[in-house]
Every structure is written in structure tokens, then in C-alpha cells.
């Protein structure tokens, strides 16, 4: 922790309230953690709370500010993260901050000129340029004026899409999206769920197919799409990228029935149960909840006294995971 020492060589005073607790640093996620009664807990600060007393050396990251006595204070409620000298607070219920390369699910709000505006639960609507989508049929060519007039037939207002964060072009913080891949495009025939963006855990793969035939797209922005797994048609996959509105009109959507629909409900309710217990959402935790909920009807999963029961395994998993990471840190020579 030598990097955090200030000029007078005094140890940086990390959050006085927690000073009796052992302060650990989870190297992997850079999350500040404390150990209370042998239980690991992430350190949560509230707005105005002191993070570092003598902060002349520290860098002031997102969610923090420096006062006139050179103290570093938190400006949001969230988890303290530090990378070397940079200290930031990741808010838990704030809007989606956005990061280039993220998979996001969004809803078209407006069509203006050559761009779509997309709601992705960020501070501002993201933009997607006409030039950053694939046209119906997957033709690669320069976009003409005619294409501009037909934008509504590609994605119309209120349509849901899955896209990738392409860049952050403006200083106002708005994001630019793109769907130039067969994986991205319009979402059809499924259920949309909204959760806190912070709960969606970053994974290598945000498209996940469960072996009971349900596909989820866990958007990094907290928007989630659940649908039936579509049988992979190799040729189709290559020649025709994801649906756009025009394509969807051509092939009449198949009606999802029986077991498939029930499974989709189950996944939806599992995700909402996880959110109600403020647990991270990723395939393993979703499966935990579904496993626990076997033998009950899917509608029971939303009952207020049932949710803590069915999320028990997921809670245990998270606790265990945190302890393991703690071990690694210790073994790593602390």
C-alpha cells in the first residue's frame, strides 16, 4: 500500500469508521473490502463520507470530490474502488455509466436525421448512426438518402435492440452504438426485464443459452432480454444477420408455447428475485435460483416470502466467492 502514503509518510487514513476492521484490497476487482467478525463485506460509503484524509497524492475518480482541507469524500452511495492512486466510488443504483465494447440492450426512442436515439438506462440516450447498422439482408454498401428515409423500417420507435457500445464521441458523455455484427440487431418474441445496471456482472459472454432452451442477453446496462433459443441455422447465420423490422415482417414470428414459455417466465422471475435481494445477476446465480425453485409454480417465485428462500443458494455462492477471492489475495503475499 506504499503508493498511498502522503508527504508526511503517514498511512493514509482509510475511512475512519471502518478503521478497527482489517482493510483488504481485492486485487481482481479493485474493490475495497473490510472484514467484520470474520465475514467479508464490501465497503459501502454514503455521499459526503470521508474516504481518504490526506489526499494530495490520490487521484480523484468518479463519484468522489476533494474538499478545501484536501480530503477525499464520496459524492454517491456505492462501493469504493481503487486502482493505484485513482480512487473512485461505483454507485449501485445509478444509471449505466457506459464502457466501450459493452453489450447493451436498448429501446429506440426517436429517429432524427441519420441517427436513432436509444434508451440504454444511461444519463443520456445513446445514438446509433445509420452507417453503423447492417441493412436488411446484410448488404454492405454506402447508405443512400433513400436508406435514410427508410430508417423506420429497420428499427422503429419503441423497438428493442441489442448492440455494442462503439465509442464515446462527445464530451457530453453520450454513447455511440453499433449493430454491425450478426449477433446484434432487433429483438423479437421475448420478454424484457429491467434491473440495476450495477447488478449485471461483467462476463466474457453476455449472450447465454441455458440447456433448457432459453437464451438470455444480459445487457451491461441492466436491460435484459429473455427469449427461446433459436435453432442455429449455419447458412442463415452467415448470410443474414439479426432481424430488422423489415425482416421480421417477412418471417412471421413463431408463437412460443407450453414448456418454453414457462421456462422463460421462470428465468424472468429468477432475475427479479435476484434483484430484490440485491445479488449479482449472471448465468450461475440465475441457475441457482431456478434450481431452488423447482417444484413450485413459476408465479410463486414472485411472492415476497418466497424470494429470500429461493435465492439462498445464490447468496451462499456470492459469499463463498468473496471469501475465495480474499484467500487469493492473502496468498498473493499480503
Amino acid at each position, binding site marked *: 500500500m506504499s503508493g498511498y502514503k502522503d508527504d508526511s509518510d503517514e498511512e493514509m487514513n482509510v475511512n475512519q469508521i471502518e478503521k478497527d476492521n482489517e482493510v483488504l484490497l481485492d486485487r481482481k476487482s479493485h474493490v475495497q473490502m473490510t472484514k467484520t467478525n470474520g465475514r467479508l463485506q464490501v465497503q459501502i460509503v454514503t455521499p459526503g463520507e470521508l474516504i481518504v484524509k490526506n489526499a494530495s497524492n490520490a487521484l480523484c475518480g468518479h463519484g468522489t470530490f476533494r474538499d478545501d482541507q484536501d480530503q477525499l469524500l464520496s459524492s454517491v452511495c456505492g462501493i469504493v474502488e481503487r486502482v493505484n492512486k485513482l480512487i473512485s466510488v461505483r454507485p449501485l443504483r445509478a444509471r449505466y455509466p457506459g464502457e466501450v465494447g459493452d453489450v447493451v440492450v436498448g429501446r429506440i426512442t426517436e429517429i432524427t436525421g441519420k441517427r436513432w436515439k436509444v434508451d440504454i438506462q444511461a444519463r443520456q440516450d445513446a445514438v446509433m448512426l445509420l452507417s453503423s447498422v447492417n441493412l436488411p439482408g446484410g448488404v454492405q454498401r454506402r447508405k443512400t438518402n433513400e436508406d435514410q428515409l427508410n430508417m423506420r423500417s429497420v428499427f422503429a420507435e419503441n423497438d428493442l435492440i441489442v448492440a455494442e457500445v462503439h465509442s464515446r464521441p462527445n464530451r457530453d458523455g453520450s454513447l455511440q452504438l453499433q449493430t454491425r455484427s450478426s449477433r446484434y440487431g432487433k429483438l423479437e418474441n421475448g420478454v424484457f426485464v429491467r434491473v440495476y445496471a450495477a447488478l449485471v456482472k461483467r462476463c466474457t459472454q453476455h449472450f447465454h443459452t441455458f440447456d433448457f432452451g432459453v437464451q438470455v442477453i444480459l445487457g451491461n446496462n441492466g436491460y435484459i432480454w429473455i427469449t427461446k433459443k433459436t435453432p442455429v441455422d449455419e447458412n442463415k447465420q452467415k448470410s443474414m444477420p439479426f432481424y430488422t423490422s423489415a425482416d*421480421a415482417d417477412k418471417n412471421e414470428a413463431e408463437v412460443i408455447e407450453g414448456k418454453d414459455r414457462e421456462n422463460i417466465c421462470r428465468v424472468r*422471475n429468477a432475475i427479479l428475485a435476484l434483484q430484490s435481494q440485491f445479488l449479482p445477476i449472471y448465468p450461475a446465480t440465475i441457475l441457482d435460483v431456478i434450481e431452488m425453485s423447482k417444484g413450485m409454480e413459476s*408465479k410463486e*417465485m*414472485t411472492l415476497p416470502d418466497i424470494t429470500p428462500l429461493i435465492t439462498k443458494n445464490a447468496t451462499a455462492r456470492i459469499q463463498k466467492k468473496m471469501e475465495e477471492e480474499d484467500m487469493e489475495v492473502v496468498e498473493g503475499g499480503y
Partner: protein
Amino acid sequence: MIKISPSEKQFLIDGIKQNMRTDGRSRLDYRAFTVETGLVAQTNGSARVKLANNTDVLVGVKVEIGDPDPDFPDQGRLEVRVECSPSASPEFEGRGAEEMNAILSAMLRNMLQNARTVDWASLCISPGKQCWIVYVDCLVLDSAGNLFDALSIATKSALFNTKVPKIEVMETSSGQTEIEVSDDPSDFTRLSTASIPISVTLAKVGSRYIVDPTIEEELCMESRVTIAINSKGNICSIQKGGVSSGINPSEFNKMLQHARKIGLVLLKELDALLDKEENNDTSTKIGFAR
């Protein structure tokens, strides 16, 4: 404001056709609801109802002494006002909630304001001169569909919880009447609430209808029929809404029957909940926004 794409809509409608809604309920399943009473100390009666932790309404009842309605001098008076707070949804800001407020207040007023729901004559103090005015003020704190039924349940619960102070009417020598309100808080009368109805809202989606629609389902519905049922199984008010489809008269009769059946079950459930709530010691309750 919540938006929904045509494809999501189709998915919801298909689900309703197959009797499997997106949250796993069947068409005639209600969401679990919770009722709390006696939350607001400044009122004579209050209640809060939550549908599945999502729709959240608070009703406060105040009784005051005032002039009776000149048309009905020997009865008490009712004033109902519903306010959709902008904290529930940004679309309720400014004049956005006006229509919703009007339609919800009208539904509650129609439901309550008839001779047999509350014994209005018992709220008369001095005919033509003074009576109790019952102010029912409803706040919508969070809206996730089916405000109608949530409000009707909350209103019944709040009136059940209402304590009307005991009064004494005295004739003074000059022929004037004088009213003395008892200052003993334990000296009160209750309203007769046994025959106050609750409403059941049926939403028509495609050719089917569902109860207790979520906000997404409300976006798909073609028409809505809110039917108020009392414990005798009588129909106390009907309000049809929704602008994209009419209802065939024979279908309408079927809806009435269904609503009646569901309403009677709900009423029983609510009565049990209210009795339990009444016997609970509410003074130890802390933290109302649970």
C-alpha cells in the same frame, strides 16, 4: 414512461391466449397484496395497499363537520380525491395526471356514493344544518398497473380503520345548536363498512380478459371494465374504459359473472386481513415505507 415494442406486445398477448402470463400467472390470478392500516396519525383512518411490492397506494380519511348537501339534507357527505403523485411516474407531472385523477376519483365516488354502501344517514348531525363530511384522499405512490383495484381495496381498508369522534348536540336557549366534540381519543364510533364494495378490473386483451393487469399488460389491453362488488355479490358500480375495442353485450354479461366470483373471494381475503390488522398493535410499528 414505460414503452413497449410491437413484438413484446405480441408476446404478452400470446401468453395471455395460452393462459401463461409473463410473470407466470394465469389469466384470473391476482398478485399477492398487502394491507396496512392506521399509518397516518393525522387522519381519522388510513390504509396503504401494495400489489406485489409494485403498485403502491396510500389512502387517508378525514372526517370534519360541515354543511350537508342541500339535495340530501339528512345525510353525511363524501368527498373523494385521487392524486397520482409525480414521484410515481414522470408522466404524472403537471397536468399529466389530470385525466387519471379524474377517472380514478369518479370510479371511487361512484362506488361509495350510494345509499347502501355506508350508512350516510348516520353521519347527519343536525338535518339541513350540520353533518360529517368524509374526505377520502388517495395518493398513488408507485404505479405498476391496476391502480383501480388497489385504490378500492385501500379505500375500503381506510374507511374500516376510520374512527369518528363522538359528539354531543345541544340546543341552546336561542334555538341554535351547539356541538361538542369529545376530546377523549378512545371515545369514537366506527363507520359501517361491511357493505363497502371493492372493485375487480378486467382487462380485455385480444379475445380474452385478465384480472390485475401489470403496467405492460395495460399497454396491450383494448378495453377495461372495472366492476365493484360488495359482500352480498351485488354490483355497485361499473366503469368501462379503453378506446380501442367495444364489448359484445353477451360477453359483457360473462365478464360481470367472472368479476363477481373473483370479487367475493377477494373480499373474504381482505376481511380476514383487516381483522388481523385491527388486532395487531400498531403503535409499535416503525418505518412505514417498507
